[in-house]
């Protein structure tokens, strides 16, 4: 339950942040990279100006994608179709030809195709593409041959991993010695499948898979992005799978390997992202194995990854680092709640997220004052975590779950967090912070969140009061955003306030309406009211944003 709750919560946060923060920005960057050569071609800007624009956003010039050659597409699709056709034919178990004759024929066709692939690649000029496709076809035929032998001798489906392994390994030499990218991709994909089949069938962690990927597939995929992505995704999937199977050592092994790869190939940041995510899997897997011993070793990789994230300015990974840290804190809370026998109800989990979110937000304010990197990520992340938590707490039904049990302890934990945040804020005020009006607005929302959380923890039985408190905090959040947006003249902040306000009204309306017997009329009238209110708010929003621009 603890693991699932943690995963769901952080996936929601990660998705929102990804969408809000990076999704659109990346889309715009890609568009810019695509359009820039066109502007240069039409002499709207000079190449120097183009470079200057790219420099502002720290973007690299992208090479125009090579157009797909028609011959390439046709031979490749043809090879894949024929290969799949043969595999399906094997599957149909056609028995008019004796089994061994079928095997001999297929083996002969496989080896002949391999030979033809070689001939067209290296001996006949001008047929390189056909040769490459034939080598892929030979690799597919080889899979068909192995499957056919497995079928003849009724190798059980629980041993399918063995068939896939026998398919994947012997085609690797084609990928390596003939530089055949298609076969490399096919082998990478087959190894991913093999890993899962092996783990499921044998109920044991598969250490061979990361070894194969780290020492064979990744080093040989240096110029092949798709293959690298498949292998990295395979490793990450294997690591995540460990969470559900208590394979904490395998997860750690994969995480360390990915981190080592990042240190070797820093230009590929995907290694750092996946290493961070894999370490989260390790923390969860470790927790599932040793619930009663908090994982303090985890702070070592967190420290290393955070250091690398700062040093190499990997912006996106700052979000993952924050999630890593918060997941660890939550798992540690869980462990201690188990050790001391205190219940850790959903409500307390969410209140703690609100507090931690507030803590991260304060870290963002302090970083901003001292001009540290990533302060905006801290602020957006902290704000989102706090907001999502308070929004969840605004549902009375959630506050009514497990109203008793161990909450006093979490009240003290919350007090510590609040005291820590308060000290940081006081220290900041002492150094001259929180003087401008915008900061004061932020401080106001922060104080409301902290106070609200403390009240909920102090008195968990009073569900009605707690619902009112959480809803009040939500309204304060909305108002803060609206006034802050106007104050600092930032339309997105202002719009976020309007969205929170609208969300609050709609949610509460549905909340109330759901309990009524006569739902239809209530919802029709309510819908109309909300539509009018929405139109009014949207008009006001646009008017104010227009005014801000002026």
């Amino acid at each position, binding site marked *: 339950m603890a693991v699932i709750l943690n995963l769901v919560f952080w996936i929601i946060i990660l998705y929102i942040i990804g969408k809000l923060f990076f999704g659109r920005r990346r889309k715009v960057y890609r568009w810019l990279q695509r359009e820039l050569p066109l502007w240069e071609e039409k002499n709207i800007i000079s190449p120097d100006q183009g470079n200057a624009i790219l420099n502002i956003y720290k973007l690299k010039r992208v090479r125009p994608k090579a157009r797909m050659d028609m011959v390439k597409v046709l031979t490749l699709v043809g090879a894949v179709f024929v290969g799949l056709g043969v595999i399906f034919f094997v*599957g*149909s*178990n*056609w*028995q008019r030809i004796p089994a*061994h004759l079928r*095997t001999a024929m297929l*083996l002969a066709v*496989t*080896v002949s195709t*391999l*030979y033809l*692939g*070689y001939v067209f*690649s*290296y*001996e006949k000029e001008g047929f390189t593409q056909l040769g490459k496709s034939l080598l892929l076809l030979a690799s597919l035929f*080889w899979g068909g*041959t*192995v499957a056919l*032998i*497995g*079928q*003849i*001798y*009724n*190798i*059980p*489906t*629980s*041993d399918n991993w063995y068939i896939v392994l*026998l398919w994947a390994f*012997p085609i690797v*030499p*084609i990928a390596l*010695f*003939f530089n055949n990218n298609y076969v490399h991709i096919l082998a990478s994909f087959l190894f991913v499948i093999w890993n899962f089949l092996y783990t499921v069938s*044998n*109920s*044991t962690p598969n250490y061979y898979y990361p070894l194969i990927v780290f020492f064979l597939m990744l080093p040989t995929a240096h110029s092949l992005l798709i293959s690298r992505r498949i292998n990295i995704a395979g490793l990450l999937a294997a690591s995540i799978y460990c969470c559900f199977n208590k394979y904490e050592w395998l997860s750690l092994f994969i995480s360390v390997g990915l981190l080592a790869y990042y240190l070797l190939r820093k230009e590929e940041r995907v290694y750092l992202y996946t290493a961070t995510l894999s370490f989260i899997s390790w923390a969860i897997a470790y927790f599932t194995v040793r619930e009663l011993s908090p994982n303090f070793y985890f702070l070592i990789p967190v420290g290393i990854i955070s250091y690398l994230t700062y040093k190499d300015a990997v912006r996106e990974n700052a979000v993952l680092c924050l999630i890593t840290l918060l997941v660890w804190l939550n798992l540690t809370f869980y462990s201690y709640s188990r050790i001391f026998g205190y219940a850790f109800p959903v409500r307390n989990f969410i209140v703690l997220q609100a507090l931690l979110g507030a803590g991260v937000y304060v870290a963002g304010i302090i970083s901003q004052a001292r001009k540290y990197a990533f302060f905006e990520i801290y602020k957006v992340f902290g704000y989102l975590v706090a907001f999502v938590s308070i929004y969840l707490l605004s549902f009375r039904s959630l506050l009514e779950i497990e109203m008793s049990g161990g909450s006093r302890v979490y009240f003290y934990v919350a007090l510590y967090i609040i005291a820590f945040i308060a000290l940081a804020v006081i220290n900041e005020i002492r150094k001259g912070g929180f003087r401008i009006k915008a900061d004061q607005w932020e401080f106001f929302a922060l104080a409301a969140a902290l106070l609200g959380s403390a009240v909920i923890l102090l008195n968990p039985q009073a569900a009605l009061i707690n619902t009112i408190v959480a809803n009040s905090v939500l309204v304060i959040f909305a108002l803060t955003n609206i006034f802050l947006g106007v104050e600092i003249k930032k339309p997105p902040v202002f719009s976020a306030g309007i969205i929170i306000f609208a969300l609050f009204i709609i949610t509460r309306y549905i909340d109330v309406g759901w309990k009524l017997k006569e739902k239809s009329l209530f919802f029709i009238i309510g819908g109309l009211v909300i539509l009018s209110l929405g139109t009014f708010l949207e008009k006001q929003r646009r008017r104010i944003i227009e005014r801000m621009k002026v």
Partner: protein
Amino acid sequence: MMNKKLIAAIIGLLWVLLALGMIASKQHTLRTGKIVVLETVPVDPRDFLRGDYVVLSYKISRLDLNQIESEKPFYRRGENVYVRLKAQGRFWQAVAVQSKKSSYGGAMFIKGRVEYCYDKQLTLNYGIESYFVPEGQGREIEKNMTGSKSSVSVEAIVDSGGNALIKKVYIDR
């Protein structure tokens, strides 16, 4: 150029050797093994047929360690065990389970992998649980295996190492 040709030849040879190796190991079992006839048990039809193969479950797949001789009360998942078989009428039945195969006066042993062991109930996998059938023909076997009593039996060959292979599937009408 020659190098590439040599590599292609080596890969081709490797594939042929691997295929022949797979065939040879199975043929060895078929040639040297002894025939045992095993009784199947009805299985849930929803889990029964997946695509073009039939899932077979045997009476010797689930063993009650209270009923048969066993050297220990618990076996861990994934462990290889040897089940001693004895002919009783037409079918061969399990009489003992042990971790290592021993020469027991020429007794017949079949090797199994522990799937599950709880409360002295042992579930084993012998590597003969899938029977591949021509497209669309699995339904007939399915009909004979469902209901209160199965009328499907399997003739398997077991080699000296305990490895088993399906030779024939009988459907008694």
